[in-house]
Structures are given as structure tokens and as C-alpha cells.
């Protein structure tokens, strides 16, 4: 089953579901006819899409709305915050082509602050699948939940089989704790690959696929981080307001400090290119990730690492 099949099955089984789009049909192209009046395309109107979805949710419907991640989270931000957020309505907001996935479109299409924006809305859940399999494993629970949810849509090919999905719980790969890499979205694949390379160099590494950035099992994340020598956050998002900020907040709440290496966008949009070239240009290729981690470890070795590796 792919994403469209799952939505179609959900809609066929429950007439409350309504699949909507602001004329961005990429993720739902094959099911529009079959959905009948459970499909609603509002045209290129992200604000009206969000407002209309709120009205439908008031009537007890469960709207799943699709638009480009930038236009949805930014152009319609106030409608999402005010009509869906304030009323706490179970609307699912599917942001297509988020982060680097907008490839060569340019800054107009680069949703690299979407997490920062969405996490300011109380009760807004945030689901960031790392690939197609992860998306498929999570989407049913997400669709059935009663929270408004932002879905950072990603159906990139999967290279591993993911574990069963549970709202708010991360997926943990490995038990080694010299380095803990935290990531979400399609960069999980780069992180996973990087951890293999690091292992081959004798640097023991654990990878955490956050899956969701809200809610977050803060205790578990703190526990995993607090017995690790180095924390690395990897995201195709601004350093501010995304995962790095979330981890910093968790640490501050626990009055805890440790070496953290953020790999993220620093105060700039990324170079518009095809995806593999973006990854290389922005230095998030597995080799780049390995180099950054090795350099960081060398740099902090005298300050922290000796102490931590003997724990």
C-alpha cells in the first residue's frame, strides 16, 4: 500500500474523511475521482484551504489537506494558527516538498522554517517521516488522531524496514553511545549511512529517527543523550526553531549541558539544485557528516571526550 491507497481506504471506511488540496495533487493524483465529494480542491488558495478545512472539521469532518510546504505553513500560517489551532480542530496539514525536497525550485519553495512555525501552535503535532516506509507506517495513526497535525511529507525510497509507529515515540538504531545522531526526515538516510562509516572507523554511533517533533518523549531523549559523548543533530531546516532548538530546550529544562554538533542551515536558504547536488553542496552527504563529526571529536577531545568515553 502506498500513501494514496491508505488515504483512499481510510476515506472509504469513514465518510468523515475529506481529502483536500490547494491544487497540489502530486501526492493524491490517482484517487481524486474515486473519492467523489470526499475530495475537495480549492484551487491555488492556501488560506481558503485552511479556513475551509476548519469549517469542515467544525461539522465533524476529518480533513487531510495538501499544499506545498512553504505556501501551506507560511502563506496560510495565520489561518492554520487561528482557525485550526485556536479551535484545536483535527485537521491534518500535509506539506509537500519540504526542506531540501524542493530541490531546484529556489527560495520561494524552500520550507526550512516550517517546523519552527508549526511548533509555536499549541497542540499541533508534527510528523516528519524519514522515507516512504516510515510515512506509510505512521500515516494511519496520524490521520486517526484528534490533534491538528503538520505532516512534513516525504515519500523518498526506503533503504530499511522501519519499526512499528507510535505517536510521539522515536525510532532508535543501535545501542552504542559514543556519538548519538538525532535526525528526522529524509536526512535520516544520510545519517544512517554516516553511522556505518563511523563504525568502520571505530567510532561507535547510535542513530535516532525522531519521527515526530511534537509530541516528543523528552525523558527518553534526555536519557539517550545524557549517556552519550557527543550529540549530533541533523536537519534540512534552519538551526533555529527545529530539532537543535528542541534538544537545547530539553537540556536546559534538565539543567544539563554536553557537546552538541548541529548540522543544519545557518541563516541562509540552500543552493537550488537537484537533491543529490543540494546534499553535497550543503555538506550533508554521509562523508561530510562523518568529517564534521570526526573534526568535532578531535576539537573537543581534550575538553569533554576523554571524560565521557570512560563513563
Amino acid at each position, binding site marked *: 500500500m502506498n500513501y494514496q491507497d491508505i488515504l483512499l481506504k481510510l476515506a472509504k471506511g469513514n465518510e468523515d474523511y475529506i481529502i483536500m488540496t490547494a491544487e497540489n495533487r502530486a501526492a493524491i493524483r490517482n484517487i481524486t475521482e474515486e473519492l467523489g465529494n470526499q475530495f475537495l480542491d480549492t484551487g491555488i488558495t492556501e488560506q481558503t484551504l485552511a*479556513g*475551509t478545512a476548519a*469549517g469542515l472539521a467544525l461539522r465533524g469532518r476529518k480533513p487531510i489537506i495538501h499544499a506545498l510546504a512553504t505556501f501551506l505553513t507560511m502563506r496560510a500560517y495565520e489561518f492554520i494558527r487561528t482557525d485550526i489551532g485556536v*479551535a484545536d480542530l483535527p485537521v491534518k496539514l500535509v506539506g509537500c516538498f519540504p526542506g531540501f525536497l524542493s530541490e531546484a525550485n529556489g527560495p520561494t519553495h524552500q520550507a526550512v522554517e516550517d517546523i519552527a512555525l508549526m511548533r509555536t501552535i499549541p497542540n499541533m503535532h508534527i510528523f516528519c517521516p524519514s522515507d516512504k516506509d516510515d510515512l506509510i507506517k505512521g500515516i494511519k495513526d496520524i490521520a486517526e488522531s484528534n490533534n491538528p497535525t503538520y505532516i512534513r511529507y516525504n515519500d523518498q525510497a526506503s533503504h530499511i524496514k522501519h519499526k512499528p509507529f507510535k505517536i510521539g515515540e522515536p525510532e532508535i538504531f543501535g545501542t552504542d553511545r559514543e556519538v548519538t545522531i538525532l535526525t528526522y526526515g529524509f536526512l535520516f538516510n544520510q545519517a544512517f549511512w554516516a553511522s556505518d562509516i563511523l563504525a568502520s572507523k571505530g567510532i561507535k554511533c547510535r542513530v535516532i529517527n525522531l519521527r515526530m517533533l511534537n509530541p516528543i518523549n523528552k525523558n527518553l531523549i534526555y536519557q539517550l543523550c545524557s549517556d552519550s559523548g557527543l550529540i549530533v543533530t541533523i536537519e534540512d531546516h534552519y538551526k533555529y526553531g527545529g530539532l537543535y532548538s528542541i534538544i537545547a530546550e530539553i537540556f536546559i529544562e534538565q539543567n544539563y549541558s554536553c557537546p552538541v554538533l548541529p548540522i543544519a542551515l545557518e541563516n541562509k536558504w540552500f543552493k537550488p539544485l537537484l537533491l543529490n547536488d543540494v546534499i553535497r553542496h550543503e555538506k550533508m552527504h554521509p562523508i561530510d557528516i562523518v568529517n564534521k563529526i570526526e573534526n568535532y571529536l578531535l576539537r573537543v577531545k581534550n575538553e569533554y571526550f576523554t571524560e565521557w568515553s570512560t563513563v
Partner: protein
Amino acid sequence: MSDLDIKHLEEASLRVREDVIRMSVNGGCFLGASLSCTDLIVYLYKNFLNINPENLKDPKRDYFFLSKGHDVPALYAALAEVGILERSRLKNHLKENDNIYWHPNRKVPGIEFHSGSLGHLLSVAAGVAYDCKVKQLNNKIIVIVGDGELNEGSNWEALLVANSYKLDNLIVIVDRNEFQANMMTEDLLPLNPLDKKFEAFGCEVKNIDGHMFEDIDYALNKLPYSKDKVSVLIANTVRGKGLPSIEKRADRWFCNFSEDEINSLLNELHTRIKSNLTSEKLFVR
């Protein structure tokens, strides 16, 4: 509609206006905008909408949305007038023990949705109308928008969508008092010819005097104005209607009067003898 019906509506309007005036003290409210749509809201709740204290959760009820949310004192008072909101709660305006504040919210019985940011509720109402339409209900979804509010492009976007989906159960009433916060609408972004603009977006339009109950009655009993189209009723109104000392005044948008001024305004409502108002003008909220 009989003369007696009209008399009853006029009496209800006077009571609602009294309540609205009483809310413009100790912190104040958007008085002028509330008084311009009072007669429309009174007519809707007394004579038109299938909304009553018993059917507030009935999916087949009519829906009323106040998109220009700052005129909510008129709605609070009308809801009290028809027994949906406990009358004693009007005294809680701006009080910590209740949720009766400057813009609508769903914690107040009878209020379907919050507003305050302009240009939102046409799209929310379109969602409600779409669902009612596909369920083949015969209910009506009515939205009052301000004329100044029509500066917001989202209204026009929502109309394009609503007409595309033939939502003829959706009715837009424009409180055309010709003012926005600081000035007359035509002095900033002229809206006229307003009916032509709505028609160009696929709506069917009627124009009435928004203070004449016969006009309101006639126009609302002709719905829908055209099959498959959103009906738009442009109700020509007067900002501050009923209080000559603040009528059509740009500097009396938000009003926070003294107790003495309130008493004088309550008298003015019945006698039309202008009050001597000394409170701060051009209050900004």
C-alpha cells in the same frame, strides 16, 4: 410581516442597543460597529435563523458567523435577547470570571466560531456549507462581514471557491456602514460599485437598507437569490446607528465612556437628544 411584528423587532433592537451601550464602559467596546449591525442580528435571531437554546448542537441547525468580530457586543446582547446566553452574563463583559470579551469566542453559548482577524470566516463558513450541501441539508449558513473587512483578499478567494462548488446555502451579509477603523471606506480603498464586484465573483446580490425590518425581511425571504450561487445581501447601515452623537463618526470607533455618559447615551437612544461626550476620542485597540 405585520406592523406588530415590526414593532416587536424595533423594541428588541432598542433593548439590544441598550445592552450594547452598557458594554461601552469600564474598558469599553467597539460601539459604532456594533450598532450598525444590531438590526440585522436582531432580525436574524428573532425572525429567521433556526437557532434556539435547544438546538445549538443539532447538525441540521442554521449557522451564523460574525466575521467582523469586533461588533460582538450586538451578538452577545442578541443571544441574551433570545435566551441562548444567560442575560446576567452580559454584566461580565471584560470580567475575569467569564469569557465575554472584545471578540467572539466559542466559550460563549451560541457563538459558532471565534473571529477578530478579518477575512477568516467566509472560508470557514464555506467549509460548513460544503458539508451541509453534500449531506443535502436545507439549512442556511449566514456570515456577516464588514465593508472595511472586504479589503482582505481572503474574502474574495473564499467567494471564488464557494461559487465554484455552487454553495447556494451560503449567504453573505455586508454591514455596509461605509467606515473602517480610522476613516470612510471610500476614502482609502474604494469598494464601489460593490455589487458589481460580488457579481464578478459569481454571486447574486441584493441591496437593502440594513435598518428597515421590512427590507431585511423581504431580502432574506428571497433566498437563495439564484440557484447554485452564493447570495450576497449588501445592507446599507449607519455606524453608531441610534446615537446621533456618535453616528457616522470616524473618531468614535472604539468607545470607553464614563457612567454619566452611558446614562446620557441611554437617554439619547430614546429621545435622540445628543449627549455631551467628553471621553477620549480615537481610542485605538
